């Protein structure tokens, strides 16, 4: 499939102005010119702000936790709106796993693709579709028909009566399904459903119909945030305990809250900073956190779908190999951030990775004895952590060769949080054809000599040359056609990270040491957790996150703790 050309197409949206977000805003612009005023321009750079906002007067209600952060970043600054999210396919799968004890990942093949807002999936803009609603309906019916009720219904209808048992079930199941306590209205409506299902059948049929209904209810499929009980200031409100518990569990587990979290939500204890911190640490130690690290890494690397490859040049490339490549990203990320010491540096520079037999062959390693992903030292001086995984390199490549443009664009966007504008309309964006008399750099030189292209491509190509040693499916190469590989390049257009490098490993270390990269990674995690781009109103939160992240020696787990305790995560803009 044509993932690759999409980059070309997506580059053709707007004119290339040659400017990226101004040099004072290294954390950069995520949008291109011309966003209509009615839509907040996402990510208008939080880079400029430095620690403002902490001096603002607090307007917290008496008795509130004094450790809670103040609302926004200085006077006049507001948190951006947070559109209501709908469960992603991963979240749906995990939620029915934890709610119904069904582990079949049913959403993956049934629901449409998830929609991003900013860099990550949020399903927050496009509304429900007809086919989507029918898919929810079919799946709800199928799940309810097959679920093991003995794990869900704890009372005996023969003992206290069917209605009482149904009510008990609805109260406890409903709380888990909707991630909040049910009010009498909720319970009454679900009792009506129970009665309809019970009629002409049995108690179990009534319960199954309640489950069918709950799985199609907005409280299940959406993540509504509506509480206005705890105002922080005129435009900001603290999430309710249950809303915060949901944000937290979908952030760290990509799933519903467990009973412990729901209990903290109900008591209100979750609003305390210390409680929140200890919950994040508890949740990170749970295997469920693997899905979040995997989701983050895959979305951040752009690993999705199946890239199109020229199978005559790469006969070994197939679905299974692509799946292995994704598995490597998951395993390496999980190892570094959940099992290991958690350092960003390790993630960006590790000389080891996790390979199965298919990847061992790809990386020219001895065939491993097991079929699982095992920690393996990579061939000397060839790899630099996640940025040189076959998945990233295969995704950011043409069908027949690696693409320095796409790889450079990845570094620029995902690590420096800067977005080069697309080329102007009408410009020829076809990659230059292969030429035995020219090296890749020479072929792409037009980009940097033609002034129409140069302003933007200066920001991408010289970063992408770091990856010249990797072909279209991520294999190591020492020859670039008839020329020896030249993987020297230069970081340009940054505030404090500019300079020459030689090869991906050198680049990886320079990236890991860059304050701009550390700030960008902080922003990316905040965006991931919120399902929206960060904006000016988040800038003090980003400052704080970055400070804590750097202070913790770039420990990603501490960054996640900082995200969960930030004002942007605990508060929301009051909807109008």
């Amino acid at each position, binding site marked *: *499939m*044509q993932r*690759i*050309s*999409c980059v*070309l*197409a*997506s580059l*053709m*949206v707007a004119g290339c102005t040659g400017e990226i977000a101004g040099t004072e805003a290294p954390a950069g612009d995520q*949008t291109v010119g*011309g*966003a*209509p005023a009615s*839509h907040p321009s996402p990510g208008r750079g939080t880079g400029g702000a430095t620690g403002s906002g902490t001096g603002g007067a607090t307007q917290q209600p008496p008795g509130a936790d004094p450790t809670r952060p103040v609302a926004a970043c200085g006077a006049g600054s507001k948190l951006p*709106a947070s*559109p*209501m999210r709908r469960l992603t396919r991963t979240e749906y799968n995990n939620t029915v796993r934890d709610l119904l004890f069904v582990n079949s990942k049913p959403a993956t*093949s*049934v629901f449409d693709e998830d929609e*991003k*807002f900013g860099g990550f999936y949020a399903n927050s*803009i*496009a*509304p*429900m*579709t*007809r*086919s989507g609603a*029918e898919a929810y*309906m*079919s799946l709800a019916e*199928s799940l309810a028909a*097959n679920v093991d009720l003995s794990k869900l219904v704890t009372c005996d209808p023969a003992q206290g009566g069917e209605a009482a048992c149904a009510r008990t079930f609805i109260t406890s199941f409903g709380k888990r399904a909707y991630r909040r306590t049910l009010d009498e209205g909720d319970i009454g*409506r679900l009792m009506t459903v129970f009665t*309809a*299902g019970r009629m002409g059948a049995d108690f179990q049929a009534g319960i*199954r*119909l309640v489950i069918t*209904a709950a799985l199609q209810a*907005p409280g299940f499929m959406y993540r*509504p945030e509506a509480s206005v009980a705890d105002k922080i200031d005129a435009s900001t409100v603290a999430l309710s305990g249950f809303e915060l518990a949901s944000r937290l569990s979908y952030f760290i587990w990509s799933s519903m809250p467990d009973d412990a979290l729901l209990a903290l939500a109900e008591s209100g204890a979750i609003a305390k900073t210390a409680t929140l911190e200890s919950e994040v640490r508890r949740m990170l130690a749970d295997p469920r956190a693997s899905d979040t690290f995997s989701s983050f890494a895959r979305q951040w690397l752009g690993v999705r779908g*199946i890239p*199109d*490859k*020229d199978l*005559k*040049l790469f006969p070994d490339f*197939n679905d299974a190999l692509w799946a292995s490549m994704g598995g490597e990203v998951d395993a390496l990320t999980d190892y570094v951030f959940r099992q290991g010491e958690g350092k960003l540096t390790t993630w960006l520079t590790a000389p080891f990775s996790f390979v199965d037999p298919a990847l061992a062959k790809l990386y020219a390693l001895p065939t491993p004895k097991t079929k699982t992903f095992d920690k393996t030292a990579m061939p000397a001086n060839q790899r630099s952590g996640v940025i040189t995984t076959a998945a990233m390199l295969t995704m950011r490549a043409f069908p*027949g*060769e690696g693409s320095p443009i796409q790889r450079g664009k990845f570094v620029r966007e995902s690590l420096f949080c800067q*977005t080069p504008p697309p080329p102007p*309309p*009408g410009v*020829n964006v*076809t*990659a230059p*054809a*292969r030429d035995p008399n020219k090296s890749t750099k020479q072929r792409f030189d037009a980009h940097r000599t033609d002034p129409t292209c140069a302003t933007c491509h200066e920001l991408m190509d010289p970063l992408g040359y770091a990856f010249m040693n990797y072909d279209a499916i991520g294999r190591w190469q020492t020859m670039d056609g008839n020329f020896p590989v030249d993987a020297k390049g230069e970081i340009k257009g940054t505030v404090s990270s500019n300079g020459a490098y030689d090869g991906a490993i050198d680049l990886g270390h320079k990236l890991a040491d860059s304050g701009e990269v550390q700030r960008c990674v902080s922003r990316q995690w905040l965006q991931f957790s919120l399902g929206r781009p960060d904006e000016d109103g988040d800038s003090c939160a980003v400052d704080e996150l970055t400070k804590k992240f750097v202070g913790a020696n770039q420990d990603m787990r501490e960054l996640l703790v900082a995200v969960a305790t930030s004002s942007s995560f605990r508060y929301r803009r009051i*909807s109008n």
Partner: protein
Amino acid sequence: MRISNLTRRQLLGSTAAGAVLAPFVPLLPARAALDKPPLRLIMMYSSNGTVREAWLPTVANGQLQLPAILAPLEKHKGDMIVIDGIKHSGGEKAQGGHAGGITSCLTGSVGKFVGTVIRAPSISVDQHIANTVSNNLKFKVINPGVIVDTFDAEVCAFSYTGPMQYVFPENDPLKLYGKVFANTQLPSGGVPGPTNDRAKLARQSVIDYVRSDLAALKPKLGVDDQQKIDRHLQIIREVEQGLATGAGAAASVDCKKPGVPNVAISNDTIPKIGDLQTDLLVTAMACDLSRVGTLAWGRAGCNHRFTWLGKQFDLPGGVQGIHAAAHDEFNPTMRSLLVQMHTWYAARVAALVDRLKATPEGNGTMMDNTLVVWFNEIGVGSTHSLSNVPWVLLGHAQKQLKTGRLLSVPGKPNNALLVSLCNLMGLVTVNTFGDPQFGSGSLPGLV
């Protein structure tokens, strides 16, 4: 490369698992006596503009003379109206290019940014027409796609149910089959489920519940989220209506449940995918499950590689698909290949018309009652011009159109053509479509 996620076994299994589902399967209602078959609309999209010199017909002795690209439509040229000169004005205003073109081609409006993606601020013509002509049918629009992909947040869909509300085509024939046919009772559709009042009541109670729960949530939300809830409520109504009907009243005699499609989805199987999708689309319309269909051969600026046309389309370097070829149009070799690619799409249109003509209906065939529209997002691939976008109509739309001609409308905004499509499909009061800054009224000389 990819085998459909949903296997035949899963598909059968999922219906079997729902003993619960079977009773809900609606029965084919008694065929109502209609005075004439309904008029249908099928819009086929292909991408990257055209090569105008090899596309634009001449007229000699009142007969269209078709150049290379349109040559496969020779046997249908008496049914054609080739429209030359349409401009996608809204797209031009929204930054132009593929993204501007695709958001404006069927909406007639100027795209707006959501995050980094351009989306249309108004409904597209297929959906607008469907709201009337497919009302109360099982589906508003049947929308198969052939590897319509996205990259990151980029959405290259032309169909919108409302502002910013794009509809993504269904790329997988097996999934399309699942959505359209798996739970629909058709004449040759296997074991009919008994109507079961208890089961119907149960499903209705769930729908009532979801409706009341949405209504209870709505007032607590902000304005934007309330709009999402409103849309969800509307969808619930549609689902409810859809449950009440199986095949439509106007199902043709050729309405037979198709076989379960089976294809590995990859660039090389595009012809097979397209054939299956075309067949599912026409069958769904023959069964009157919907009266509007869209068929998308890729996304805006798609770069499908036409490897099935021969070795010369599989060029070294691996970057050469239709998008790349279109950019390199002024290279004679590339241009020749590009012409052959667009010619191949014309042959797909011809195959669609063949299929419609082979389906008897009333005193004639489905083609008598179907308006086929072949459209594109841009005019020329190399320059991304949104002028002279190639639009071709086929079919007389129940004797409303005089066909077999070239209609020249240089510089006319597509909005006028969209108005005409509404009028032809029975929405006779429509006088503007999309952004009114691009004028009102139908396309002069079409009817």
